[in-house]
């Protein structure tokens, strides 16, 4: 292939459909420059374009209003730069999280981000959907880890924001703008992250709680004791919450926090809190990942942490009741959770979704459907009501993609 070769292109097949909408063409550029050339060409043709990374989160959002072309990032997988002593990495957007972690892991580092499916999820896709896992408890989300971005706009123009140093306030924060923007503002081409050292040791404990209140009290007790867990996730399948808590750091600190946590829980101390072996720990976090990717319906909830009981005892129970094999993953310190299961009737589920939204509305909480069967989608919008700043969001979209050609209609409020 010579330098001017156009990006590989083929006709869209059924496997390329996004929520049932089939693209006419599929492009797989092998460089960022080729990707920009594709977007420029699509701009000339006034064609609509959707972006696909690992294809693991295409259920998020509405079906595209139009889809002339799909641009796949599967060949944009290079590590552009890794500077171990500066603890930063620059990668192309199509690299999977697992490949990134393997590369930096060899230098005793990691990106402090642990969503499920790391072997398949790409950095671009994670950025576009604001993906996260249990480590968010301590390290924050992608917005707290990204320090630079380069994007290709709808018109094919490449632009960047941020930089390669952790501390930098020059210019507007384009990196944060791209987080969670679901491919509606531009193609994420490369991303720069700050890295953290891999911890020398870690330990996972599981405590059990009968109620959501119990989970919250445990979180509160840990907070009161100034414990600093790296991850806290409560898993509910059936009647009991298994609260998985991981401490990370240097061996002495990890052991001391482990012992203090056991002092806090149960009577006699530690009776209701198991220290897991390495194998058991792996199993509990794998179970977490399995519940986070369960379906066929999965909803993400955001709420004020102290409103947990009111939520769980109220309309949320109705939603759990409307699902077969219902499960709930709860991050009690963050005020985030994921409900999944098999809908027992589309209308029933849609009504439950609406009442949960109603109960969250006053505090700025939200419920977003990450995955849902078509019949549920027919009765419930995946995003719910747009936020109060929606007019400004619409305006931002218009400025960056005035013809509305990037992932049209998929995002909040039909953006």
């Amino acid at each position, binding site marked *: 292939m010579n330098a001017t070769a156009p990006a590989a292109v083929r006709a869209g097949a059924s496997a390329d459909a996004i929520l049932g909408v089939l693209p006419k063409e599929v492009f797989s550029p092998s460089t960022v420059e080729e990707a920009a050339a594709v977007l420029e060409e699509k701009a000339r043709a*006034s064609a609509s374009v959707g972006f696909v990374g690992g294809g693991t989160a295409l259920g998020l959002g509405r079906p595209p209003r139009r889809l002339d072309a799909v641009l796949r990032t599967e060949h944009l997988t290079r590590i552009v730069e890794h500077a171990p*002593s500066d603890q*930063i990495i620059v990668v192309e957007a199509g690299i999977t999280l697992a490949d990134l972690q393997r590369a930096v892991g060899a230098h005793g580092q990691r990106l402090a981000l642990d969503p499920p499916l790391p072997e398949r999820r790409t950095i671009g896709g994670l950025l576009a959907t604001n993906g996260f896992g249990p480590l968010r408890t301590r390290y924050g989300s992608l917005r707290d880890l990204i320090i630079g971005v380069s994007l290709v706009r709808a018109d094919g123009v490449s632009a960047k924001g941020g930089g390669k140093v952790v*501390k930098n*306030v020059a210019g507007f924060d384009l990196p944060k703008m791209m987080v969670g923007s679901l491919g509606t503002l531009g193609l994420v081409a490369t991303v720069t992250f700050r890295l953290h050292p891999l911890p020398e040791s870690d330990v996972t404990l599981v405590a059990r709680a009968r109620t959501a209140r119990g989970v919250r009290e445990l979180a509160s007790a840990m907070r009161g004791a100034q414990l600093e867990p790296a991850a806290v996730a409560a898993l509910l399948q059936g009647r009991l919450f298994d609260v998985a808590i991981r401490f990370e750091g240097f061996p002495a600190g990890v052991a*001391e926090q482990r012992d203090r946590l056991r002092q806090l829980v149960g009577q006699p101390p530690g009776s209701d809190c198991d220290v897991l072996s390495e194998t058991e720990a792996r199993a509990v976090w794998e179970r977490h990942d399995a519940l986070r990717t369960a379906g066929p319906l999965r909803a993400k909830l955001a709420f004020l942490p102290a409103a947990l009981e009111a939520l769980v005892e109220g309309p949320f129970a109705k939603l759990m009741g409307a699902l077969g094999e219902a499960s709930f993953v709860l991050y009690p310190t963050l005020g985030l959770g994921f409900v999944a299961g098999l809908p027992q009737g589309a209308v029933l589920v849609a009504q439950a979704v609406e009442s949960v939204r109603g109960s969250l509305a006053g505090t700025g909480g939200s419920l977003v459907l990450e995955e849902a069967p078509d019949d549920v989608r027919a009765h419930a919008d995946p995003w719910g009501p747009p936020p109060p700043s929606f007019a400004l969001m619409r305006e*931002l979209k218009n*400025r960056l993609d005035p013809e509305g050609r990037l992932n049209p209609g998929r995002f909040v*409020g039909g953006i």
Partner: protein
Amino acid sequence: MSVANAPAVTISRDVVARMSALVGAKNCISNPSDLRTYECDGLTSFRVMPGLVVLPASTAEVVAVVKLAWENGLALVARGAGTGLSGGALPVPGCVVVALTRMKRILEVDLENGFLRVQPGVANLDVSKHLGPAGTYYAPDPSSQSVCTIGGNVSENSGGAHCLKYGFTSNHVLGARVVLADGTVVDLGGPALDAPGYDLTGIFVGSEGMLGIVTEVVLRMLRKPQATRTFFATFPSTDEAGNAVSSIIASGVVPAAIEMMDGLAMRAAVAATGVDWPDVGASLLMDVDGPLAEVEHTSRHSVELAREAGALEIRIPKDENERALMWKGRKSAFAAVGRISPNYIVQDGVIPRSTIAEVLHEVTELSKKAGLRVANVFHAGDGNLHPLVLYDARVPGQEKAAEELGGAILRLCLRLGGSITGEHGVGAEKVAYMGEMFTEADLETMQRVRCAFDPERRLNPGKVFPTPRLCGDLPGPYVPHPSELSGEATRG
């Protein structure tokens, strides 16, 4: 470069009277001698007389002021405590300065949900003082924290010594109530995480007063760590100190703060605060915090690494008082330089951390060539340099030479892949360097963001972006030329 003698532009008497009716006569300043107080921020070499200064007391008053300015085509410049060091709050001729210093109430503290809601004029330190009894605090700690305001911090995305571990303002702002240029009030984000839609809060923080006027801010609070360990280490030169920083960080320790000072900066701090520091080439001041057993380990380990790197002496504070004194010495360093030089410029560049030693050598070379002294104080953990360029304005040509030296240091930062500003912002001062760090397309993309918020460019015009640009010139839907349709021509 100074714009000291920009012509005063006056605002019509009618508008002044109406503004005065909106905020009360004593909160509306139009008398030229009183306006002088507002003609610059902490970057005093840039001065412009504003047309009018108003001090509203509520969101409703801000809205009324903004609408009146909007109707009369007046530019607006928001202002907090005026401690900014890049001319962010520098007026533009004939503008209305909206000073938020009367809006300094803490509106809500929600310990259970870990957030608080404050007005923009609250001083940074007052937030943590207010939270102290509950065992929580607000993490970003700029050295100016006893005076600078939360509104100013939001606009500059301010940092501080402890931002290495805990992040900058932007990592701790959950939401904001903002008055747009036409007087519309918008709530961005809020205490619950991950509201659907774009992260407008993330875009707003650090936008240097150009996207809106903040009238309320939702801040994240953190629980205080169980323990903090501090040590102060002296070194023969910045080489050994820089190596100590590198090896501590490579060992997997994430310091809460790690600050470096060179000998000149240390001598200034001694002169100003009387701290008992020896006359050596460099020093480090480091905090680790977290659970007790963890910090006992990391501090001991870091001290060993500092020794291996060539530390002359390690001091561990006996009590909170001694620790506070060490930090006072460090935090006073900017002002302290005033003791050893009649004038100085504070620079704010960022370099990849691993290049510290190399950069300081180059800075020394540059300073020799310019015949000016440079004192170095900086946040070593994240490579944020604060070279203080010393000069005497009474000596003809020295101010200009100092500005050139500052510029040469910024270019050095860019050459190594760094940034022209780590925390002070671009403001009016660094506009000229933006084109060296970013391409025309990068800047034009940022301008599009600005236009989404402020299409008439009424807010803080002339800051950050080197070339003024109209908003309306967006490409419309593409219409092919007839020759293209017929295949005679293509656009490449």
